[in-house]
C-alpha cells in the first residue's frame, strides 16, 4: 500500500518509493539518505505535532510534515 510519509503514525515502517517536490528541498532530502529503497521508521512527532523524527539509514533525521509529504512510501506489512 502506498502512503505519504507525512501520513505515517509513530512506529510505522516503510520503504521509500519516490520523492516529489523540487529544487533544494528535494535535493536535501536525497542528500540526507531518503532515496528510493531506503527503509524508514517514523519515530515520533515533536510536542507541537510537527516536525517529525524518523530513523533512516541507521540515524535520526527530523523533517517537517510539509517536507515529508514529498516522500511517497510503500508501507511495510507488519509481521
Amino acid at each position, binding site marked *: 500500500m502506498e502512503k505519504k510519509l507525512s501520513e505515517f503514525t509513530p512506529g510505522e515502517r516503510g520503504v521509500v518509493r519516490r520523492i516529489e517536490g523540487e529544487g533544494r528541498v528535494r535535493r536535501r532530502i*536525497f542528500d540526507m539518505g531518503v532515496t528510493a529503497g531506503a527503509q524508514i521508521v517514523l519515530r515520533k512527532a515533536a510536542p507541537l505535532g510537527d*516536525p517529525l523524527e524518523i530513523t533512516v539509514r541507521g540515524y535520526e533525521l527530523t523533517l517537517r510534515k510539509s517536507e515529508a509529504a514529498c516522500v511517497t512510501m510503500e508501507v511495510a506489512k507488519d509481521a
Partner: protein
Amino acid sequence: MLRIALAGNPNSGKTTLFNALTGSTAHVGNWPGVTVDKREGVCKKGSVPMAVVDLPGIYSLSPYTPEEMIARNFLLEEKPDCVINIADATNLERNLYLTTQLLEMDVPVVVALNMTDVLQKRGDKADAEKLSAALGVPVVCISALKEEGIRDLVQAAYKAAQTKRAGTSVLAQSPLAHLIDDITIALRGKGVAHPLFHAVKLAEGDEPEVKAHPQEMQTVEAFKKKCADGFEGDYEALIADARYGYITQHFSAAVSRSERSEKLSASDKADRILTHRVWGIPIFLVILFALFHLTFAEDLFYLNAIFKIGFDVETGNSVLDSFVAVFFSSAGVAAPGVILFNLMGFVCTLAGNGIASGVSAAGAADWAQGLVNDGIWAGVSGVLSFIPQILFLFLLLSILEDSGYMARVAFILDRAFRKFGLSGRAFIPMIMGFGCSVPAAINTRTLADEKERIMTNRVIPFFTCGAKAPILAAVCGAIAAQYAGINADLLVFALYLFGMAMAVLTVAIMRQTTMKGEVAPFIMELPSYHLPQLRSLMVHLWDKLKHYIKKAFTVIVASSVVIWFLSNFSWNWQMTEIQNSILHDIGAFVQWLCTPMGFGSQLGKFGWVFVVAAVTGLIAKENVISTFYVLAPAIGALIPGWDDGESGIGPVVALMQATGITWQALIAFTVFNMLTIPCFAAAATVRGETPKGKFRYTLAFWMLTSYLTATAVYLVLTWWWTVFILLLLAALFAAYVALRNRAKSCPCGR
C-alpha cells in the same frame, strides 16, 4: 609544505580529529554545523610537517548552502595534495554518500573511519580492508577522541599525497555511464580540472555547473531526449539513488552488524523524556531557567524569599566577614555563579587595595595615582570580577551544546518558530548568542535561506551575550538592593526572556514587511546524546577565558583610560573635577536624546553618565560596566557621605543615588543596551555574514528597535496606563501592514 584538507559530514568528529592532528584547541560541539568556516593548522605528527585545513561539515557537494560551497570551492580551486575524508563508522551509509562525491575529484583521498571504538562497544565491526577494496582508496580506522590510529592516518595521508589520483565514480555501472564518459572526455579536452566531477554535476543539473559549461549541458539535454529510462530525465534522483545503492551494496560487506538488540539505548531513553509530547517544552523552559538561576541567583534555594532565612555572619574580623559573605548573605545562600562572582570581587578588592598602596608608596603624583586606581584598575577590575561568573554560564551552555540537546531544542520549537517566520534550525545560532554573538553570527552560514540568515543575524544580539550579562547582573542587583521585594535573579531572567521575545517579535514584523517569503525548510540530523567531554569543555572555557582577559587588557584598558582622561580634564588640559570635565560637556550635549527612555534630561547634573556608558558600550559591551566603575568614584567625591559599596554592584547603586535615576529608567537603559548595536566585533561579523551593501539597514534596525523599545519599556513601567496607547499604536501598525499586504497580494487591487 604538503597541504591536506579534512572533509566530512557535520558532527562526524572532524573538529576533534583536527585538534588531534594539529594539537590545537578548536571548539567541538554535538550538533551539526560547529565548524562553518575553514580553519588551518600544522600537523607535526608525521615525518614531515603538513598543513591541515578543516573544512565545514557537509553532507553533500550540492550548491545550496554557503558552507557546502566553501568546501566545494576549496577542494576544486585550492588543490590540496590530499583529502582526508572522515566518516562516522556508526553512521556509515550516509557518511559514505559524501565519499562517493569526493572520489569523483582528481585528488588523492584517504578515508578515516572514526568512532570505530564506539562501534566495537556496540558489538559491530568495521572491515577497513573490504571498504578500501570497494572504494579504491586507503581506509584507516581511528578514534579521534581517544587519539587512536592518528599516526597511521598521517602516514597514509602523507603517502597518498605523493601520488596522483584520477577521479572514479560509482556511477560507472549506472545507465548514465556513457553520458558521463562523453562529457568527461569533452571537458578534459578543454583542459578543465576535475572533469569527472564536473561531468557528474552537469548531469545532475547543478546550477553553477550549468552556467559554467553550457555547451556540455546541451549534450546532457540531447541524451535526456534520446534515452528513455525509469527516471524520465530526473537525473538528480537517479544519481542519488545510484550512490546510495552502491553504498548499501558494499556497506553490508564492510560493517557486519551483530544482532541489534531491540532494547532502547540510553540516548533513546533520554530522548523520550526530553522531547516528550507534553513535557518537552516545559522541560526546555526549566532548563533555561536553571541555567540562569545557577548563574545569577543570590538566593539559590529561595530560603530567604520563602522562609525569610538570611545568613548574617559577624566574626569581628572584616576580611573574614567579607569572605564568608561570598557564600551566603542576608539574601540567602548564593548560587555557584554568584559565589564565583563574589570570590573574584573579593580578590579584586584585595588586589586593588594592594595596587593603591603600592602606587602611593612609590610616591607617584596625584594624577598618576588617579589614572592607575580610578582609570585603569577600576575599569579592568569591573570587567575582571564578572569573568568567573560568565565563564560558569559558558560552561553550562557548553554542556548543553556538547550533549546533543541543542538539536532537540530546534526540533521541539520549530513549529512555534515557524508561526513567526523562522525555522527551528535558526534557533541554534540564537542560543549560541547567549555566549557570544560573533561565533553565533558565523554559524548562520549553515542556514540555507538568505532572508532567514539576515533576520537571524539581526536578532542574535537580542540573545544577551556574556559581555552584556554583567550589565543585567549589576543593574538588577542594584535595583534589588534599593527596592525591597524585587528579586534580582528573577529580574535578570525576565530580561533574558524579554530579549528572546523581542527577537521573535521583530522577526515576525520583518516577515510581514521587509522580509516576506516562505519559511526555510527544516531537514536536520538529530545526533545521539552523549555525556559532554570534560576535555572539550575545558578547551572551550580556556578559549573564552583567554579571549576575555585579552579584551580586558586591551580594549577595556584603552577605553577606561580615555574615559578617565575625559572625565578628569577640562578643555584647557587642566585636571579638574568631573562637573567641569570634557566628558561632562560632551555627555550633557547629547543627554537630551535619552529623555524618552528615562535617562536623559530628567536626571540632572550627573545623568549624562548613562549616555556615555551606552555609547562606550558600542565598542564593547564590557565598557558599560567599566565606565560606571571609572566614573563612580569621581562622582562620589562630590557627594557627602559617599559609600563606595563593598560588592561588585556598588558603583551602580552609587550612581542610582547620585543621579536619582528610577528603576524604570534603569531597566530601560538595560533594554537599550541589550537591543542596540552590539560590540564592534559582532557588528563587523554580522556585516560579513549578510549580503553586501545592506548592512546599513541592519544598523538602522538595531538603532530603531533599541530606542523605541527602551522608550516603550520606560513609559509602560512608569505609567502603566500608557500600555493602552502603545497597544493601540501597535494595532494600527498591524492593521496598516495587513491592509498593505492584502492590497499587494490581491491580483485585482492595482
